[in-house]
């Protein structure tokens, strides 16, 4: 007989007892002596119930019998545990006193102390703080996934019983009402979504700040770097890890100071997530990268190298300049990161602080997407030469150039 026949939640018999019952029923109670002590014990119990089960027509009764026996045994076990009258009174007094031992009467004090000690044992489990950051982040991420799923499946449905009106004018006005409702609902949902995504991204910055702190602490203040130098270009993500600056950032993942999820902005659908390949030295492609890392100089950089770390950007939402260059598109120096719909970018500073900025240009007029040399050229063009002066000519018939 299978225990699957029994209702979930009810007590069950172990395998050997069930087999013993089966053997007794198959052979017919009373027709054959029990073959072992277990069968003998079961036989004695069943005889107490005086239930003759001798033929195939009583197969269901076997299952019922086992159920009844198991429940009776469990009830016996539960009934055994009862508080003494003094303990019951002390329990009531202790709870009525708000679980305070000092507030119960002298007579009940020692028993209340036992109740209190039981409470401490039950509630004071340790080792929960070690998962705090991970679990909080995972919880927020789960909620975000739920919001994303809700948004993608959200449809405006007419309520049940809705009847199509006979006139086109009525249909048009109803459609207008639905569109108006959508125009209200969508921004609210979108607003909630972007708030949560920003929150998660900000959380990533904080997580990565901790990772940087741990890494530099273990590496004599040196910021993460995969190799002492790199080749022609730091933009070659995934092709030759010893070249790309992203492989320097990936050092945190490779050495398990951070996870891929910590470096995955929720707004990047192509971000690499989950378990990292233990043999990987870099992300596989530019699209997988969510955050741009400070370009490491040859020989590396110490976290203590500058006197004003609060002004040095260590990490930011990914650079739009690099993406445009790789896509052979014109660069817009002051464009915001594509993360968060170009509304701005998070920045993690060298001192561990993180903030949000709606421009890539710092207060010091330093553009985080560009090196100073190129910024100087742009400044020179703008400030010394202006954009146009009124003396320019089109560069031939195909040069589109209008004004004033």
């Amino acid at each position, binding site marked *: 007989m299978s225990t699957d026949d029994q209702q979930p939640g009810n007590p069950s018999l172990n395998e050997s*007892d069930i087999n013993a019952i089966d053997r007794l029923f198959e052979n017919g109670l009373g027709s054959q002596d029990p073959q072992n002590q277990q069968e003998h014990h*079961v036989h004695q119990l069943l005889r107490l119930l005086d239930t003759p089960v001798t033929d195939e027509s009583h197969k269901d009764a076997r299952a019922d019998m086992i159920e009844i026996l198991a429940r009776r045994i469990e009830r016996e*076990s539960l009934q055994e*545990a009862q508080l003494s009258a003094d303990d019951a009174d002390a*329990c009531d007094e202790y709870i009525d006193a708000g679980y305070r031992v000092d507030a119960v009467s002298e007579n009940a004090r020692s028993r209340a102390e036992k109740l209190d000690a039981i409470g401490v044992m039950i509630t*004071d489990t340790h080792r929960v703080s070690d998962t705090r950051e991970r679990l909080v982040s995972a919880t927020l991420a789960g909620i975000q996934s739920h919001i994303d799923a809700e948004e993608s499946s959200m449809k405006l449905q007419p309520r049940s019983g809705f009847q199509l009106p006979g006139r086109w004018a009525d249909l048009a006005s109803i459609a207008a009402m639905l569109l108006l409702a959508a125009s209200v609902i969508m921004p609210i949902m979108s607003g909630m979504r972007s708030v949560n995504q920003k929150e998660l991204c900000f*959380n990533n910055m904080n997580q990565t700040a901790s990772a940087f702190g741990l890494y530099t602490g273990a590496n004599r203040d040196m910021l993460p770097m995969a190799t002492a130098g790199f080749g022609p270009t730091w933009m070659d993500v995934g092709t030759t890890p010893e070249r790309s600056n992203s492989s320097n950032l990936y050092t945190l993942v490779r050495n398990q100071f951070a996870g891929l999820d910590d470096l995955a902005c929720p707004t990047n659908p192509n971000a690499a997530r989950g378990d990292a390949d233990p043999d990987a030295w870099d992300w596989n492609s530019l699209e997988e990268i969510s955050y741009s890392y400070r370009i490491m100089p040859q020989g590396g950089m110490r976290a203590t190298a500058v006197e004003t770390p609060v002004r040095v950007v260590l990490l930011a939402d990914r650079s739009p300049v690099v993406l445009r260059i790789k896509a052979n598109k014109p660069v817009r120096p002051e464009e915001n990161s594509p993360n968060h719909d170009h509304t701005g970018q998070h920045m993690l500073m060298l001192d561990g602080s993180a903030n949000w900025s709606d421009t890539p240009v710092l207060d010091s007029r330093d553009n985080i997407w560009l090196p100073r040399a190129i910024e100087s050229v742009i400044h020179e063009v703008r400030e010394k030469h202006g954009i146009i002066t009124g003396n320019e000519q089109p560069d031939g018939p195909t040069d589109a150039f209008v004004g004033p």
Partner: protein
Amino acid sequence: MSDWQEQSDEQVFEAFRAEETGAYRELIERYHDDLLRFLTRMVGDRAAAEDIFQDTFLQVHISAASFDSSRRFRPWLFTIAANKARDYLRKKNRRKTVELSAPIKKSEPGSSFVDLLQVDVPAPDAAMDLSERDEMVQEALDQLGPALREVLLLAYFQRLSYAQIAEDLGIPLGTVKSRMHSAVAAFARAWKTVSKGEQSL
């Protein structure tokens, strides 16, 4: 960003409903330790407790609009968590196995009563290996039926009065008292067995 330290749970929850950045994270952070401990004790499995922890806050998020702001947040949160834990245990189909070969003796008058003064419960500041104590407490709790375990944990983790437990569980006050007495007795009996290193039933 608001200074959350100064604000009550209910105020932070209202801030979350008003879409203030960081409010929901603050709530999750506040309850991480207590709720995770509660769930671990309820289901006896840390990984499952973490999953239920996430499910609980997802449910809170989904049901945010329906929360009555005149109520306290904590009992509402723990009620959702307890429901989720109960669902998990039901799905996991945790059934106590009983053995027919175990002796079934007729109860003598007075033999079924537990006297707490005879139970060796370590004092809160007693020197003891906490990991070992954790495992023993869990082993003792696992011997309680789900209903007794739930009332015991809800009472101790939230420090609720009998009336509050009755309201949260939707059962009569008298039932709460007797169930609490049974739960304490059952735990004390189980603890006595576990702490002496005997085989449990």
